[in-house]
């Protein structure tokens, strides 16, 4: 496409106008934007325009003769779908003629935005980043939220939640986590210890983090999760992961006895089998006399699991 010295490639046109249509001087489709083809449910290139588009208001024949009279006007058109089952999709459009012949149409769902998005599964990438359509959808939902709150006020009551009974992720998720972190951790063998709590607030998290830091080495990593911490134990071979877990459970046991922490679960899994009796490549026990034996802990806890080799 070129106009007045400005050349615009198809990729650029697709990003600026995901719902556009370029017609040649014969009225055939040269190119269609990706969002428009998504709505049409088929490829539109090389099709005659009468198979693709109908000018409704103002009414005009789908021929190149219509281009000049329609240029620059606000148009209502229908995008014609493939097959008997697909209903025409009403769209707003503006048409400009091109210097080399043919026309460019820029289209939009207009007032039927929400329905078009829902019916055709559009997402944010189907709109230009500066198109306010997504903001309009945001506003629709925001208003629905406010309306819902008003209705809830009118009827009284707030729904109870199972917030306090959230469970930690199943150990089976480890394989996915391990796959994602394999490159990032620069380690061929590592394991995980997940500490989850029903009360994952800042104070609890800080206490858990302090406790975890005392059980880990420098090359291990502590990550925040919505319900606690995820400890990535590098070189987690032969008992290192289990040792971390056992130490954490021991410390948790003491904190629970002191009434400082409750409802905390520790789950461990990794490249090595989690054997709570084994000592791994970890720093010596801190001289605070923590109860090392995890079996002595009365806290509820998830079972250990072995994942991978």
């Amino acid at each position, binding site marked *: 496409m070129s106009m007045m010295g400005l050349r615009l490639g198809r990729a650029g046109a697709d990003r600026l106008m995901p719902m556009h249509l370029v017609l040649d001087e014969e009225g055939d489709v040269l190119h269609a934007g990706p969002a428009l083809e998504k709505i049409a449910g088929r490829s539109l290139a090389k099709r005659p325009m009468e198979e693709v588009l109908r000018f409704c208001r103002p009414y005009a024949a789908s021929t190149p003769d219509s281009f000049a009279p329609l240029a620059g006007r606000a148009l209502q058109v229908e995008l014609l779908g493939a097959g008997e089952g697909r209903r025409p999709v009403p769209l707003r459009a503006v048409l400009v003629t091109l210097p080399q012949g043919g026309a460019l149409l820029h289209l939009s769902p207009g007032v039927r935005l929400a329905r078009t998005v829902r019916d055709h599964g559009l997402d*944010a990438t189907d709109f230009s980043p500066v198109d306010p359509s997504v903001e309009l959808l*945001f506003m629709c*939902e925001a208003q629905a939220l406010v309306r819902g709150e008003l209705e809830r006020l009118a009827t009284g009551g707030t729904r*109870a*939640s199972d917030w306090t009974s959230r469970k930690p992720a199943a150990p089976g998720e480890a394989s996915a986590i391990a796959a*994602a972190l394999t490159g990032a951790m620069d380690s061929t063998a590592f394991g995980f210890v997940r500490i989850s709590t029903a009360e*994952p*607030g*800042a104070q609890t998290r800080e206490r858990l983090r302090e406790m975890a830091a005392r059980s880990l080495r420098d090359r291990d990593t502590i990550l925040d999760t919505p319900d606690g911490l995820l400890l990535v134990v590098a070189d987690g071979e032969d008992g290192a992961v289990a040792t971390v877990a056992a130490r954490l459970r021991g410390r948790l046991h003491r904190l629970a006895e002191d009434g400082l922490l409750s409802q905390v679960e520790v789950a461990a899994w990794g490249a090595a089998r989690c054997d709570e009796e084994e000592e791994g490549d970890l720093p010596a026990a801190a001289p605070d006399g923590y109860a090392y034996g995890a079996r002595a802990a009365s806290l509820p806890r998830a079972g250990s699991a072995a994942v991978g080799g």
Partner: protein
Amino acid sequence: MHGTILKTAEGYLRATRGADGWAAIAAAANLPPDGIIAMRPYPDRVMTALLAAAASHTGRAPSDLLEDMGTWLCTDPANEAVRRLFRFTGPTFPDLLYSLDDVPERARMAVPDLDLPELSLVEQGEGRYRVASTWPLKGAGSVIVGVLRALADDYGALAVVAHEGRREARGFWVEMLSIRLLDEGFQDPKGFALGGAA
């Protein structure tokens, strides 16, 4: 203080402490006997009293409760609409971070007189960001920490979000957060469709 914010705190405390717990906290905070009305403005001291009463009742620090509330706001099924509103900011977690500065204006699109914390993002490179939160009351940064941790999870990103401290200046609390984005595609994001609730 807009009633919507107080109502959110009420919703969180009801959900986590039950009706009896909420009743005790509301009584200790001397809340209006007819309850909080979402669309009514209240003096800031009502929120301060509510937080103090909740902290006393639960034995937890106010910042602890506020962070928890931020997470609850974006994860509890009852707040699905709020989660969706955040997801409108863009298809990726960095898109969300880039739009944090717009949060107050977006909120005003829904409720014109709702004043949320002013947020300012600084991108430091290599997946590191800092966010300054400015609000008349202390603790907004803790709520944002909870919100961002929950939304990182929602987007499937692996991110470390931390509260770095706060200071008071000219009647406002400026709170600093740090974000380290370790893996944008750590896991599959939770479902979101633009037209999902339309």
